[in-house]
């Protein structure tokens, strides 16, 4: 009996082999990007270890929220694409205010005014079409025209209830064109369900030959494939924001700050472009096979602080309204 | 020197209810002593205190010179360490083990080697006239047979004292008579010290060397059957032992 207890306590008291401190990064970056990043971080920071937790953006945010509420999250650095979540956490004073080195030139619309977070990369929402169902000329040119009757039964989107990037897209489009746009989509029998992978699937099977999707989902397909082609909407791509923030904790924040710095360094920014996201620090080349950032930014709707606050407040209403119109 | 000693042994419940009045008793080695009395007189409680299944709140109980219970000095030897054998009124033969396993159990607990166990169990089964029935399950045995198994189990570990708690009350008259003779015979054969609890005066008088009469938690009289019959302590005893 006594032996069992002793063994139990020994097990609990076992110290880890590696004595260095750990910086935890919770992120929605793809696994292959992380695989690329890990050795680079190991080299850059011999004094501490960096460990990753990877899941979809929604899962990561939910996990951090739950852990925070439960007593404190293990995560130190967060990188995922729900900007509104970061805004809210900033408001709750749970983020560490820090402007990473090299972010002086980053556009203001990608920064939080109190430096509680900074946008580290820009995924963009574009459209795709299946070349087996239409030619390049026949393909649509803008988001707006998808509400026209000629596109009945041809369009697929994701759902803002399931996907953060889809939510952002709906938020921007709703601001630009109002809810009547979505009523038009509804009349066109648009399928609005799931995330970006569902859209890809639907376009590939021609269930709906046109869809809106993240640029990175398409550029990740084998470059030789010709079946699915990209449309850069004439009324502007929707800019998504991949945000980096640091959780506020007692004690030393230097290591976490150093990691944040790395992601805005030329080395870090280039790695992010390997994931087909645009860099936010000027001077870094655009992702392979993607148009230059300047072109993208020309027509895209801008992020403004008012927009952020507005959408933050109306989040639930937007989702409800969308559900009411599109999912009845 | 007494083999089993009760020195000022008594039991009081926390609320103040007295179950057994303080009594003294010394039992010699090889002696067959019966506790006799009506139900609720405290005889079973006294037996269970000796076994360690209940705790005396007062007095000292000793077996073969070892003090097994002394509440004042905070000594209490748990039942599994007292080396007493016990036969219960309801036999308490384990239904999920066969006859052999039941009788072998105490030896298994003492970590005896397999051959030794086999040897001793079979010998003991022969003593209680249950040889050949090792594989049977209790559900396949009659009451009398189960009783014998219980007896064999109590004896097999060569206990310092054998305790029996109204073992025959569930048997029919004929069987009871036979068992009385058998138990007494085995006891004398093995020179066992036995403490036997019963409410049946015939059992007590025919089997015992001495009888302890109890009533209402008090020890009323101790003596050989002849002594008590000749000089009963009071009317109650006279009536009881008639």
């Amino acid at each position, binding site marked *: *009996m*006594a032996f069992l*207890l002793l063994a139990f306590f020994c097990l609990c008291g076992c110290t880890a082999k590696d004595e260095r401190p750990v910086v935890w990064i919770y992120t929605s970056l793809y696994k292959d990007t992380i695989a690329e990043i890990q050795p680079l971080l190991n080299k850059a920071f011999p004094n501490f270890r960096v460990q990753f937790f990877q*899941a*979809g953006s*929604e*899962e990561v*945010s*939910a*996990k951090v*929220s*739950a*852990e*925070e*509420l*439960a*007593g*404190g*999250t*293990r995560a130190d650095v967060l990188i995922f694409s729900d900007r*509104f*979540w970061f805004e*809210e*956490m900033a408001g*709750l*004073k*749970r983020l560490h205010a820090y402007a990473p080195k090299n972010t002086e030139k980053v556009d203001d619309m990608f920064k939080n005014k109190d430096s509680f977070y900074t946008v580290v990369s820009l995924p963009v929402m574009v459209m795709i079409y299946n070349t087996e169902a239409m030619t390049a000329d026949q393909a649509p040119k803008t988001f707006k025209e998808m509400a026209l009757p000629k596109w009945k039964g041809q369009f697929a989107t994701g759902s803002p209830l399931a996907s953060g990037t889809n939510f952002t897209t709906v938020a921007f489009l709703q601001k630009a064109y109002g809810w009547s746009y979505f009523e038009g989509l509804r009349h066109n029998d648009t399928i609005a*369900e*799931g995330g970006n992978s569902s859209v890809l699937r639907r376009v590939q099977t021609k*269930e709906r030959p046109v869809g809106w999707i993240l640029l990175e989902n398409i550029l990740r397909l084998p470059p030789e494939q010709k079946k699915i082609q990209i449309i850069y909407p004439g009324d502007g791509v929707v800019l998504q924001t991949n945000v980096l923030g640091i959780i506020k904790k007692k004690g030393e924040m230097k290591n976490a700050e150093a990691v944040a710095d790395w992601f805005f360094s030329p080395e870090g920014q280039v790695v992010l472009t390997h994931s087909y996201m645009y860099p936010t620090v000027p001077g870094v080349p655009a992702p392979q096979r993607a148009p230059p950032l300047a072109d993208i930014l020309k027509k895209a709707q801008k992020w403004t602080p008012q927009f952020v606050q507005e959408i933050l407040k109306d*989040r*639930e209403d937007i989702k409800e309204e969308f559900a009411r119109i599109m999912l009845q | 020197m007494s083999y089993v000693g009760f020195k000022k042994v008594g039991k009081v419940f926390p609320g103040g209810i007295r179950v057994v009045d303080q009594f003294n008793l010394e039992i010699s080695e090889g002696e067959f002593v019966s506790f006799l009395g009506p139900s609720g007189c405290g005889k079973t409680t006294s037996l269970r205190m000796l*076994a*360690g*299944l209940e705790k005396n709140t007062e007095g000292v109980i000793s077996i073969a010179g070892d003090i097994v219970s002394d509440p004042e000095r*905070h*000594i*209490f030897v*748990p*039942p*599994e*360490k*007292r*080396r007493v*054998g*016990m036969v*219960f009124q*309801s036999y*308490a033969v*384990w*239904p*999920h083990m066969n006859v052999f396993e039941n009788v072998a*159990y*105490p030896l298994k*607990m*003492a970590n005896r080697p397999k051959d030794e166990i086999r040897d001793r169990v079979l010998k003991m089964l022969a003593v209680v006239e249950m040889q050949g029935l090792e594989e049977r399950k209790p559900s396949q045995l009659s009451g009398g047979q189960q009783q014998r198994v*219980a007896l064999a*189990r*109590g004896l097999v*570990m060569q206990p310092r004292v054998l305790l029996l708690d109204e073992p025959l009350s569930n048997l029919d008259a004929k069987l009871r008579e036979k068992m009385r003779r058998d138990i007494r015979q085995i006891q004398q054969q093995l020179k066992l010290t036995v403490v036997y609890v019963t409410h049946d005066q015939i059992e007590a008088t025919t089997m015992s060397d001495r009888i302890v009469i109890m009533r209402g938690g008090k020890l009323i009289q101790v003596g050989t059957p002849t002594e008590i019959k000749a000089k009963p302590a009071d009317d109650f005893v006279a009536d009881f032992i008639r």
Partner: protein
Amino acid sequence: MNRFQQKCRQLLSGQSIILVLAAVLLFALCVVPFIELFLKIIFSGVDGEFSLEPYRHAFARHSALIAVGNTLVLSTLVTLLSLILAVPLAWLLSRTDLLGAKRWRSWLSIPFAIPPFIGAIAWIFLANPSTGLLNKIFGGSFFNIYSFSGLVFVESSFLYAFVLMTALSSFDRIDSSLEEAARLSGAPPWRVFCDVSLPLLRPALSGAALLVFLATAASFGVPALIGSPARIYLMTTQIYMFQKMGSISGLLRAGALSTCLMAVAFVVLTLVQYLTRKQSLQTVGGKTARPSLIELGKYRHFAFGGVTLFWIITFILPVLGIFVSSVSHVQGDLQWSNLTGQTWIRTLLQNEETGRAFLNSFILAGSAATGAVLLSILVGYIQVKTRLPGRGLLGSMASLPYATPGTVLAFAMILSFSGSFLGILPSLYNTLALIALAYLIKYLSFAMNTAKDAYAQIDDVLAEAARVSGANWTRTMLTIWLPLLAPALAAGWFLVFMPALSELTMTILLTGPGLETIGTTIYQLQEYSDAGGGGASVLSLVVVILVVTINLLVKWISRGRYGL
């Protein structure tokens, strides 16, 4: 050896350590999460100060208030309907010469073991306004399951079984001479029922009715599958939506609403305690010889027809429905050419998620059942075979999670176990371990009750004989208690395994990528219908078959003591 040494010896004995650990574990699992839930919501202000913000936010929008209202109304209606259906049925089955009464008892109680959301799937297939089979048969779109009445109907068609079982067992226990005296006094059967039987049944029935109320308020599957598409939100689905927001404010709102749901549960349970306390009067009559049955005479066939029709509507029709759905190529199309085995093949064999879901469910339910049984062995011992102070509380501690709505329990567990639990465990958020733990805690009382029953049946003498034979407490436990408890423990294992296998309400809040279970997969398949639909029906049918089979197994193991 002085007193201190002896006390230490005693305390450190194998028996004490094991038992104390068991009791502490029970407390930690069954009580602490709720305390934490409450504290975290109340003290959710910045820097941990007292704050009612979560409640304000949760109820800032109408939707939450409406949800509360909906829940209360739905629960009331379902309770009433269940009573109306079950009580006359019980009377027919136990007091009249209805044909096949004995069989009916078993058959009509089966819905108790089937998760209601499976019924939802079946009835959606049968009665959805666009492709519902019944609508196709009878033409038009008369039936619309996506309605409040649809909710009431589906929930009642399952929960009536609970009232039925309670009523039947109460009827069985009534001293029949009380009713016979009424009959001899000239009262016709229905008066006997109203004047004598009903009053006698009232305490037990009130208890059962309130528990149906609670079960409805706590249900998630049916509200999610039928209510949400109809934009009818209930507290459980509202909590789910809040939690899905993924933000701290969302979690706080979910938590606030959870505590409200818990308050509802608490009120109901207190009422149940109060009402069933008066049970001691009259009912248990010693010599229950079978009461003389009332002859239905000319109503015999009518009654039999009625009961059969009831059974067909509540059981046969839905089962048939999901069967047809599972072999239909296009949902709702009633032609022979529409039949296909493709859906079965696709769902069970080609979909890797289904395989993983089954594996997960079996592992989760299995480990929860095993853990529950192990804990119940020790706790049952404390309850029945010791006289330790406070042992009465153990049973109540275990029934706390059982009586709590699964949504609330799951949420409490998220809050307790996502950080480090009492400083010991790592974050269990989004792990299989947390789900298994939730199942264990929720259904622990099933295992504990069977263990307690079994211990009570075993005479102490058997253990005393072992101790006198030289076995210490641990060896007695291993060689005597456990083998004798084995059949009951097996039954207890299955009683936990069964509901855990198809659980949805808690799992939906605790699940994550890679953590799919049978229940969540059915839900996902139904909500985001895979091309062609039918997948949910395939899995539902599998669940029904599993449940019926396991139930028969339990009945067999326990020789009819447990099981329907």
